[in-house]
């Protein structure tokens, strides 16, 4: 009997390059992706053509986006692609995939997880109000749907995406009221260290900030005590800066603090995890090749640890080469070494970026008791603190069992990190010591009526 086909989860930069590399070696991978078309979040394609060209959509990254889309289109006939499909469970070398209300169970031989990332968010008062979206979400609205999240928009949080999205909105003709960066201006000096590694990226970021300023957008650094105000929708933003309180009215907010990897499937695949101190998050343990602790399972791209789109393309290719090698097939060892060298360089650059846009580590100690931490189950910071005290909890899954934090529909994607920060602060332990939320199938909601494929045929 012939071997089962390799499975690639995700058709962003990492998944596409992995598929390309496997196809080139004569394998026929199955690529499963939730989106209707390839590109991931960064090179997301609009649902229908809308008159905007690649430059309008992707700016300086237009060529990369087009190259990736073309590379994937060229694989047609040599791979199997399941768009609009969700891998919701992994068990014993089999994947359960929900597609069009039908469940398909496929056996795979070799699994590359290229599951990407979403915004890292720390809850602040008012973050559940209509009109408040993540930075990534603000970008999706613009790129994928040709919509702005509002008419007078504030962007807040920290990270390179903060400036990029604000700049993209300004370029699209939307009124950007302010860019509020939680990182102190002094942290930006770290960016000088990035000049030697990737000068073009640093200079592009500087240009975004300069152009925003030139167009009269308020830029603030070192802001704290951020809150979004309003009753039925957001009407303003309040923050402190140099000891003074500030308020601006607006009708929408894009908010985020860098990114967090999507790791649930690696967990279900049985991969060991390690704590990444730089990103304050548990990630699948992996070799530079993308090999995990489980034989035949590889991780690549932001889902394996945040490194950005360029790194994702390289890591996708690298993981595919590892899969080929492990299958005893011919693989380009020289190319593999080259890719690892470049990925190591990008990782050093990530160190610089994290220093320039640091995680606001004091958040857990300062977040008010009445702030909702878990937006699914509406669990507040105060509830978490009293659960920790009343039940003498010191582990995150126990906190989940007692408080329901992370038990809602998002499975802790948006509250897990902040709940761990609060638990760590309350118990005086490190974030690594309080553990991580275990992944549970289904990794995202699927209908109870999901029909087994055999019954549907």
């Amino acid at each position, binding site marked *: 009997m012939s071997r089962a086909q390799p499975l690639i989860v995700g058709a962003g930069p990492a998944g596409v390059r992995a598929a390309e590399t496997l196809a080139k070696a004569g394998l026929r991978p199955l690529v499963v992706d939730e989106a209707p078309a390839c590109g991931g979040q960064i090179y997301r394609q609009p649902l229908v053509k809308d008159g905007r060209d690649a430059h309008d959509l992707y700016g300086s990254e237009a060529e990369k986006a087009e190259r990736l889309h073309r590379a994937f289109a060229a694989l047609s006939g040599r791979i199997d692609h399941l768009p609009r499909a969700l891998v919701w469970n992994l068990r014993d070398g089999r994947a359960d995939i929900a597609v069009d209300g039908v469940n398909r169970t496929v056996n795979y031989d070799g699994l590359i997880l290229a599951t990407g990332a979403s915004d890292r968010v720390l809850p602040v008062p008012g973050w559940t109000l209509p009109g408040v979206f993540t930075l990534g979400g603000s970008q999706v609205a613009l790129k994928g749907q040709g919509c*702005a999240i509002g008419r007078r928009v504030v962007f807040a949080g920290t990270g390179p995406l903060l400036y990029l999205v604000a700049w993209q909105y300004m370029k699209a003709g939307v009124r950007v009221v302010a860019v509020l960066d939680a990182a102190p201006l002094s942290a930006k000096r770290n960016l000088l260290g990035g000049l030697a590694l990737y000068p073009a990226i640093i200079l592009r970021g500087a240009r975004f900030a300069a152009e925003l300023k030139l167009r009269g957008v308020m830029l603030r650094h070192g802001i704290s005590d951020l809150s979004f105000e309003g009753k039925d929708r957001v009407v303003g933003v309040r923050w402190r800066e140099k000891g003074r309180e500030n308020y601006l009215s607006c009708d929408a907010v894009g908010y985020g603090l860098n990114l967090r990897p999507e790791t649930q499937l690696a967990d279900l695949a049985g991969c060991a995890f390690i704590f990444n101190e730089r990103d304050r998050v548990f990630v699948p343990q992996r070799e530079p090749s993308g090999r995990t602790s489980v034989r035949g399972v590889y991780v690549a791209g932001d889902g394996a640890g945040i490194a950005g789109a360029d790194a994702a393309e390289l890591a996708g290719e690298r993981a595919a080469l590892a899969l080929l090698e492990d299958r005893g097939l011919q693989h380009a060892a020289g190319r593999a070494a080259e890719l690892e060298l470049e990925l190591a360089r990008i990782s050093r650059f990530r160190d610089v970026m994290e220093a320039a846009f640091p995680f606001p580590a004091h958040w857990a100690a300062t977040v008010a008791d009445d702030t909702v931490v878990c937006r699914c189950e509406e669990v507040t910071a105060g509830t978490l603190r009293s659960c920790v005290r009343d039940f003498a909890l010191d582990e995150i899954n126990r906190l989940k069992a007692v408080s329901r934090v992370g038990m809602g529909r998002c499975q802790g994607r948006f509250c897990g990190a902040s709940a761990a920060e609060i638990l760590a602060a309350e118990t005086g332990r490190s974030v690594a010591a309080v553990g991580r939320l275990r992944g549970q199938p289904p990794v995202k909601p699927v209908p109870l009526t999901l029909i087994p494929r055999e019954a549907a045929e």
Partner: protein
Amino acid sequence: MSLFQRIARQDHAPVPFMLDGKPCEGREGDTLLTAILTNADKVRVSEFSGAPRAGFCQMGACQDCWVTLADGERVRACTTPLAPGMHILTGASA
């Protein structure tokens, strides 16, 4: 008052749909989230506090934009394309 402001696709074919019993219009290429938020300022209410919500991540991760269709089917607004004649219920009776 709508939350979203259209930048592109204003000239695309209108797609009629119903929102909580009220006739509305989206555009070809809209997701449900876009169709709702170019007409209204919330997509659902929290089942705990009753507070209004309008989604958050827009990429199928946060699960904060699930709506019910009149036939009882539940769908995630940010990843579901709008189809003509859909009747979307936000769960808000107002």
